[in-house]
């Protein structure tokens, strides 16, 4: 049984159908790419998966184990996150005026184990939990060597590190599936290469399933095991990178003729 099963998902804005009848399957542990021209509906699909938009029709099923399968469509974003989906944003949306550490700690809120009264009176439980939180947060920050900057304000980080922090923050919610929206945007080839490796690494370390949107083919073709291609809101192709690269429709709509940048 697949971990995430999207069936005939549609979203329209007024007259515009941004996502139209899209179906896809993601198995546990997979690393899947989602590509397509600008405006194809990739981000919209993410927004549907994470509850930011309510689908016009269609279903999104998450099955963490064989017994339980949940419909995610129509859930509020925080409930989707609780169910096990975490994301990053195409336009970075960090808590800019908070410290790096706080950015991560906020994402860990749903796993906190003390109650409101502890928050007011700082009982022992509070201290124990806060210590645990801090430790875990620092561990996560270590992935991108950010723990030295844990007391910096997020907005003062260089662009690339902000993108890294977004990933850390998403990981802090302990997701089963991680959705990355253009993680390499604005990075130079060196930085992209480093990011590619990191994604591969965290995926193993955290036993994650990853779905990522990216226009940088050097990243997509290198680490994605499977690729879905959207165009005008419709799924026009899916398959292994080698096949996608040769797919006529994809080349015409998206890659262009001389694909030699992978």
């Amino acid at each position, binding site marked *: 049984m697949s971990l995430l099963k999207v069936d005939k998902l549609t979203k329209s804005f007024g007259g515009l159908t941004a996502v139209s009848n899209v179906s896809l399957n993601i198995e546990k542990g997979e690393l899947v790419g989602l590509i397509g021209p600008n405006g194809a509906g990739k981000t919209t699909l993410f927004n549907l998966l*994470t*509850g*930011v938009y309510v689908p016009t029709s269609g279903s999104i099923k998450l099955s963490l184990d064989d017994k339980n399968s949940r419909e995610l469509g129509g859930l*509020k*974003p*925080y409930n989707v*996150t*609780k169910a096990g989906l*975490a*994301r990053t*944003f195409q336009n970075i*949306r*960090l*808590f*800019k*005026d*908070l*410290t790096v550490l*706080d950015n991560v*700690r*906020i*994402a*860990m*809120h*749903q796993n*906190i184990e*003390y109650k*409101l009264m*502890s*928050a*007011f*009176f*700082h*009982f*022992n439980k*509070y*201290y124990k*939990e*806060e210590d645990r*939180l801090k430790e875990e947060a620092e561990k996560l920050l270590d992935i991108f060597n950010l723990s030295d900057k844990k*007391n910096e*304000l997020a907005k003062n980080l260089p662009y690339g590190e902000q993108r890294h922090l977004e990933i850390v*923050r998403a990981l*802090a*919610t302990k997701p089963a599936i991680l959705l990355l929206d253009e993680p390499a945007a604005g990075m130079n080839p060196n930085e992209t290469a480093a990011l590619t490796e990191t994604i591969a690494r965290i995926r193993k370390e955290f036993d994650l399933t990853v779905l990522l949107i990216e226009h940088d083919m050097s990243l997509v073709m290198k680490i994605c095991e499977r690729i879905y291609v959207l165009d005008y809101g419709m799924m026009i192709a899916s398959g292994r990178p080698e096949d996608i690269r040769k797919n006529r429709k994809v080349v015409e709509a998206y890659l262009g003729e001389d694909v030699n940048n992978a």
Partner: protein
Amino acid sequence: MRILMKKNLLILLCLIVTFVIVQVLIMNGIITRFHEITIATICINIILAVSLNLVTGFTGQFSLGHAGFMSIGAYVCAIINSRMDSTLGFLIGILAGAVAAAIVGVIIGIPTLRLKGDYLAIATLGMAEIIRVIFLNLKITNGAAGFSGIPRYTNWMWLFIFTAGSIILINNFIRSSHGRACISIREDEIAAESMGINTTKYKVMAFTIGAFFAGIAGALFASYFYFIKPDAFGFLKSIDILVIVVLGGMGSITGSVIAATILAVLTTFLQEFTAVRMIIYAALLVLIMIFRPQGLMGTKEITDIFKFGKREERLNGRRNR
């Protein structure tokens, strides 16, 4: 218990020293009845400002109705305390006033907190007006004529206990995971939701806690000034509280405390300048905002200032615009 940590003991010591010093000064007559009124105003305004700061400064929800919650606390306490003329009655009155304000906070918060920015401001303003009009027309509150003859139980000790208690509790809350959840809403609501935070729940929570403490402040107010009437809790009062919060710095508890103190002292000082007091006050307000738009403290706390090298435990909210 970690409550007995060095840091907490130190705070406790400071509190006790402050209390004792003022108490001794009162007993020696160095702090007169007149100064005491200023102190009472300061304490009540501190509670109001700190609680509004939680809603507006930390959670980022623009509320123009804080005086409404204050009035609920004031009337409930006044009514109970007038009928039960004892310290116990006073304490029951305060608790009942705070709880009543909190309940109204939940009832009003759930539908209105879906609104954003100025739309929320209008809704909270309207809500406070509704509360005011109700008090104006109720029999038990004696309507426009006001409620007079409230026994005075509020004294320095109670003021101190409730003010220090409010500051500590709200400060603790802000430094907890729940408090960080509130702050994340201010920073970016969409991102907060995507990080698993039920933003509606935490907005309502902040709003309710704010209302609860505003209720306490109202109760103390009623019991200190003998007399309350609905007019005293109009939208201008809400604005006054907001002024303290912004002047101190949105997102700084210390700022609220300092601004409440400065403004009360300033108002008292300006009493002497009858003809121009409001002109001076207004001009100072404009000047302070021009030269310190982020408020006196920005989002810094007093503890940040003493912690140069060790930035470890800096407070969550840190907005320097």
